[in-house]
């Protein structure tokens, strides 16, 4: 694993998200009310809605276009046959780290 420092967790709004540009497309990094962080592909499999613009509640996010609700842990859409990719991300000493080896590895494959 190679962890990349994305900056302080306070750069992400509480119950909100910011986006990352990656070789795999946009990835949304979420921050919950409890300061947990999650990273998911920023694209709803339904109509391509930007999940980073959705309402974050508990450990879920609701797509802003048609209200599909995704579990931030698994990327699984509740009640739908759909999943978005999740990426390893963690907070250490107030800074957000993402496992970029996987992002890079995937793009090279």
């Amino acid at each position, binding site marked *: 694993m190679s962890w*990349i420092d994305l900056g302080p967790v306070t750069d992400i709004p509480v119950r909100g998200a910011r986006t990352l540009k990656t070789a795999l497309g946009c990835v949304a990094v979420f921050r919950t009310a409890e300061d947990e962080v999650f990273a998911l592909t920023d694209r709803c499999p339904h109509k391509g809605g930007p999940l980073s*613009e959705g*309402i*974050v509640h508990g450990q879920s996010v*609701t797509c802003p*276009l048609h*209200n599909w609700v995704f579990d931030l842990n698994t990327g699984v859409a509740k*009640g739908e046959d759909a999943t978005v990719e999740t990426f390893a991300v963690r907070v250490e000493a107030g800074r957000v780290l993402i496992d970029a080896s996987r992002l890079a590895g995937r793009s090279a494959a």
Partner: protein
Amino acid sequence: MTEKLVIIGAGMASGRMIEHLVEAAPDAFDITLFNAEPRGNYNRIMLSPVLAGDKTYREIVTHDEDWYAQHGVTCRFGEPVVAIDRDMKVVEGAHGHVPYDKLVVATGSIPFMIPLPGRDLEGVIAYRDLEDTQRMMSMGAGNRVVVIGGGLLGLEAAAGMAARGVDVTVVHIMGHLMERQLDEAAGYLLKKSLEAKGITVKLQANSKEILGQDGHVRALLLDDGTELPCDLLVMAVGIRPNVALAQEAGLAVGKGIHVDDQMITSDADVMAVGECVEHQGALFGLVAPLYDQAKVAAQTLLGQETAFRQKTLSTKLKVTGCDLFSAGDFADGETREDIVFRDPARGVYKRLVIEDDRLIGAVMYGDTADSNWFFGLIQSGESIDEMRDTLIFGPAFQGGSSVDPLSAVAALPPEAEICGCNGICKSTITEAIEGGAGDLAAVRATTKASASCGTCTGLVEQLLQVTLGDAFRVPAAQPICGCCDLTHEDVRRLIKSQALKSQEAVWQELGWKTRNGCHVCRPAVNFYLLADWPLEYQDDPQSRFVNERKHANIQKDGTFSVVPRMWGGITNPTELRAIADAADKYNVPTVKVTGGQRIDLLGVKGEDLPYIWADLNKAGLVSGHAYSKGLRTVKTCVGTDHCRFGTQDSTGLGIKLEQVLWGSWTPHKVKLAVSGCPRNCAEATCKDVGIICVDSGYQVGVAGAAGMDVKQTERLADVPTEEEAIDLTVAFIQLYRENAKYLDRPYKWVAKVGLDWVKARVVDDLEERARLIAAFELSQSIYRKDPWAEHAKEADRYQTLADLTLEAAE
């Protein structure tokens, strides 16, 4: 000993059969369930309400994973069955064999696709499963869809898409719609009301070819040469039993899989239920007989004596605003007599078909309240000779009882069928109620009545009322969402009375079941808090939908639209130049004049928003709040300034109103208009607040609508001065802010509280009016400001957090 039961197909019939089995004998069978679709049993009849947006897929799931797990059903979903080996008694799935003692084939039906040239093009679909429904749900305003087939399914598909703003054309080969269920007159009325919903109906239209472009459907060509352009083509012309697997296994197959009265096929260990079977020459497409078959199949498996009997069927169309019912046989015949009731102006048509003094068929359109009573008469076959004179007027006119719907329900005989889908009669329901089922949910759980298509819900509630009397409370309004047990109204009341001033206070004090709400309740609670406690509570952008958080409207491709405010619809060359410059600078692909008299810049990238706002701000332009549940626009005509008919300065009043009201948040969007004379060029009579200027002053109307519903404003009051017109408007909007349910437009709220209640507070009680105006002003001391100017200062929040493409490329 536990027998091995394998079921092929997880549809409504087999699902119901499993329910019967696990209820009667939970350990009798070791069940394996195959389904080609990658999911379990859902209520297919409810796909039309899902399409129309009245329900979600989640709400129509009958059996979820937990249910299957709880009942020990081994699920092999998404795995097609390759073959059945009857000699070895083994089912061969794509991922492995499963031996059986008993096998139930429930492979359902496949949609019939007319063999037209071009039917393989992308964008040509049937209407059968969730995928088809989702495909139709992806259509919206600006899309064109052609539906081939004017039967039940085709019309529900058409109406569902039309409700989403799609331009829909129905192509039907016969002379009138739903010819199998309706006679010509009812078919005509149905056509008229579908056309009123914006659906184009082409009858006696023969499809010739499906035209494509780059592999995608482009248009349908009729044999008279007409081309109907479309983005999607839906074939809903019928279904046929899916018998391929049974046929290859050597079972006796005609049109469907042959079954006897016990649902047993030509092989004693193989049964079949559902749309794939043929019983005494008949095929089945409606749900009621399928449920009967499911019950019979379960009983047969359990060794009970039973027999499947075909019954008279009734049909109701699940299209909002089209009340339609048909049952029995209504073809013309020499020995048959008709009783017909027509009221074309009200769109009501009823026809009863009588043979030998018995009712054998009924068609009703526009008023189907008595349909159950007629259906009961058809099924019982009793003589109607005595009541023939008044028969068509329904049960209320038999024996002089009143027209009260409750007495009509009370008068139904015990064997009258209430729930057609599940074949549940009145006595079954009343017995369940007497046995302790005290509300709708309990009746559904014990009898299944109203648990399928739901059209009999009202009848079941009336039965509860008749049976329980005062002990039955008509169900309270729904809670906001699954996060809490309270209605919107309760939450509003408690926020005020308990002085709850933060989201945390609401979650804790009002017993929220989730940590911080969800996308349904949190935006509502955020609004209620800021409306009631403008100084104490700080608006939370993270509890707002994307448009209000971003102060721009998200478009389907993820870009945004930017609409600067034009006070009263007035602009000038400087503003127009600034807009033109911004459109150039940010490569805005579309510039559109809106219906609210301003200019929309569509297709702006999210990261450019703060910069385009800063540029517009420099020219004095501010946010038009075109994205908010708040004041949108005040549309005006030119009034006395230029118009020879103008009676007052309507433009000036419009500008003043907009300057007072802008920036305020409301339960839903609010649109105003001021017309300078009763010619009403500003279309004020369909606005949330619409003012018409007359010689003697101002007519203030409220609660109009021109969206999902169209409704004329109701007169709040006539006032002599401009100041009073503004005061009434402000007081009305503040009353709405303080009391309405989130996402109710003013017309919906006024319909609930009544205009008199509003007038008493806004017009008559001057003290209350003054309080409302002061409360609004207090709130505006916080919110009357330009959000664009503030957000333009925080441009970095609109940018990506990091760009990892460089690292990834290494």
